[in-house]
């Protein structure tokens, strides 16, 4: 009988985090990179919840709650920035934003 332990969830979270990191470093579309950030945040949330259950501690879930709130605020501001950049540049590719000029 195979028992699912916390290590399984933590490993899955590690894999998801690595996939998100890979996406950020490979893709050029600002929106896709943003989704990869969300993916990494969610992988970390999974470690919080799984570790919290394994250790008999509820505060892991409270931490997840705060991460969710910060992620929501981040999405709102980040997407607003992407839209503002797109209005000006007609592009959402991060490679074209390398000049640091307004």
């Amino acid at each position, binding site marked *: 009988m195979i028992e699912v*332990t916390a290590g399984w969830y933590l490993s899955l979270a590690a894999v998801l985090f690595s996939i*998100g990191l890979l996406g950020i470093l490979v893709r050029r*579309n600002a929106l896709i990179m943003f989704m990869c950030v969300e993916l990494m945040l*969610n992988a970390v949330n999974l470690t919080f919840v799984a570790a919290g259950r394994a250790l008999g501690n509820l505060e892991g879930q409270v931490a997840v*709650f*705060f991460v*969710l709130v910060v992620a929501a605020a981040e999405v709102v501001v980040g997407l607003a920035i992407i839209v503002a950049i797109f209005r000006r540049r007609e592009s959402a590719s991060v490679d074209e934003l390398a000049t640091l000029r307004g």
Partner: protein
Amino acid sequence: MVELVIFVLLGTGAIAGALSVIFAKNPVYAAMGLLGTLFSLGVFYVVNLGHLIAAVQVIVYAGAVLTLFLFVIMMIGVDRVEDTSETIRYQRQLVIGLAAILGVTIAALVIGGEFAWVPLAVDGPIPNGTVENIAGIMFTDWLLPFEVTALLLTIGAAGAIALAYYAPGTSVEDAE
């Protein structure tokens, strides 16, 4: 047994969704893959006794955030082709190798480490994440972070409006 089946099925779904985020050519498909991953994680939260967190995950992430993503994707257009040529030579191969090393290393550390043998909440207090229990902690020990969160959300909303607003009749050229 049930947990094993859930883990294998939804874990596969979560990884497949994550891979589709980074490999999909069309951002809409990427968003759908992200939706699958987020939903799978929501189910994992339920399995790990995070009932309130799971509900919030589905409502906030799979609902609000994904909808916002889709709005922006539709707004800035999905028809343009992404330039995938790299300015740094061998960046792609290097990055894929490094990401694989990172994932395997962390997973091996977790599986080989002491943490793998911690059974999931067999003895000790069961951290049942009901609304009542979460609120009991959040409104006592975590009250100050909770209040600061309200400030953060207000600033976020104000910032988004400030960034997205431009007066009708003025064009981008006028601002420059």
